[in-house]
């Protein structure tokens, strides 16, 4: 499943925030999905975990546990481990964190058309940020848009190009308020992406902007 040719990675601030546990759920999903494909970023993320280990261990004032605490914990242990997640069959497109949100593999995604052959599926996360899967037919473009907040887009299948660069499986494009771009899918294959935003996108053409409240993008 690991992709060997990733050239667009996650930034240290995202990886540290993921390790610290302070990202909105949609961003956690993006990071977990990328780390499933990218061992370079996984190693960086786990070194930020190591910093957390030291913060935990070097606190100058540990708080005493209750007197019967160890016995209570042994009783918890005796109840057995929580039921493990059922193993999902491998999916060539969706890494396991995404399969958990889709409830299956790529064929189980419940797409909704948003025009010009482009489809999306919003994933169930907390509302501070939005995660959605995007389907862009081979050769098609996503409407020209800018962003209020930060938008991360990661390719899961196929590839796309925009004013910045070319992005293939595992690559993440990080777009902020200064970037207006028009991603165009490669002609060879339909493109599927995971896109995460912490604010609604703003479209620069009139009609998409009018539709935006209905599309929730």
């Amino acid at each position, binding site marked *: 499943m690991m992709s060997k040719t990733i050239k667009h990675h996650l*930034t*240290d*601030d*995202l990886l*540290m*925030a993921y*390790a*610290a*546990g*302070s*990202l909105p*759920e949609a*961003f*956690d999903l993006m*990071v*977990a*999905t990328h780390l*499933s494909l990218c*061992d*370079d970023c*996984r*190693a*960086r993320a*786990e*070194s*930020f*975990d*190591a*910093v*957390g*280990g*030291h*913060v*935990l*261990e*070097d*606190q100058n*004032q*540990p*708080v005493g*546990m*209750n007197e019967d*605490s*160890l016995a*209570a*914990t*042994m009783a*918890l*242990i005796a109840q*057995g*481990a*929580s039921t*493990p*997640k059922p193993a999902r069959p491998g999916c060539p497109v969706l*890494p*396991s*964190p995404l399969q*958990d949100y889709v409830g299956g593999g790529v064929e189980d995604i419940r797409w909704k058309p948003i025009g010009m052959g482009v489809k999306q599926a919003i994933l169930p*996360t*907390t509302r501070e940020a939005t995660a959605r899967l995007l389907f862009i037919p081979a050769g098609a473009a996503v409407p020209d848009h800018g962003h209020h907040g930060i938008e991360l887009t990661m390719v899961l299948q196929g590839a796309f190009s925009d004013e910045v660069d070319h992005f293939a499986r595992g690559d993440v494009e990080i777009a902020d308020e200064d970037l207006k771009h028009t991603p165009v899918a490669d002609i060879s294959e339909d493109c599927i992406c995971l896109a995460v935003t912490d604010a609604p996108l703003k479209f620069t053409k009139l009609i998409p902007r009018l539709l935006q409240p209905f599309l929730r993008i």
Partner: protein
Amino acid sequence: MFTEIDTVTLDEPAAELVARLPWRAKKRIKDKPVSGTKNSCDTKTEWVDHVRRIRDAQDQTAFAELFQHFAPRIKAFLMKSGSDATMAEECAQEVMATLWHKAHLFDPTRAAVATWVFTIARNKRIDVLRKQRRPEPEDLWWGPEAEPEQDNVIVLQQETAQLRTALSALPEAQRELIEKAYFGDLSHREIASQTGLPLGTIKSRIRLALDRLRHAMN
């Protein structure tokens, strides 16, 4: 990194387990003091052995020692993250129980025990205090048939100890900010200014460990 995956059966007699997995008994480590670094021999490789004793022999003495060291730190961590004492006590117990159940998933070539405990405590905090799911990357583990080389374990534990020394040498104000970040008190944007940490060496070690693991998995 250490998410839900099927757990070992716990009521299996230890002797049977060792008989079935002879290389584990053979590879049991002695707590070698690691050279050069302060703090390294008192807490580091020693805890690795504790986790192995729990995994291989359901060793309650080893667990009690880990509990005594880590549970009060988990409780303090959760209280600093906004939990009250009752909830922090309960969650610390659950984190320690998880440690027992997932001992077979701990990879000492990629993490110190404190790192691993932190990740479990952090996920508990996200679950209980923020009430949100925590997506984790696909599991990578050695499986029941393989075990990492002891040399690689020692090197990673040494690197972790050196990271600790490097962090404690940072200016006080920066250390306080890092603590705030990990107690959940900084937003992602505030964290963005805090990322110049001395992680180069440990990151390379973990990267190598992932390569070895990928190789073993294929």
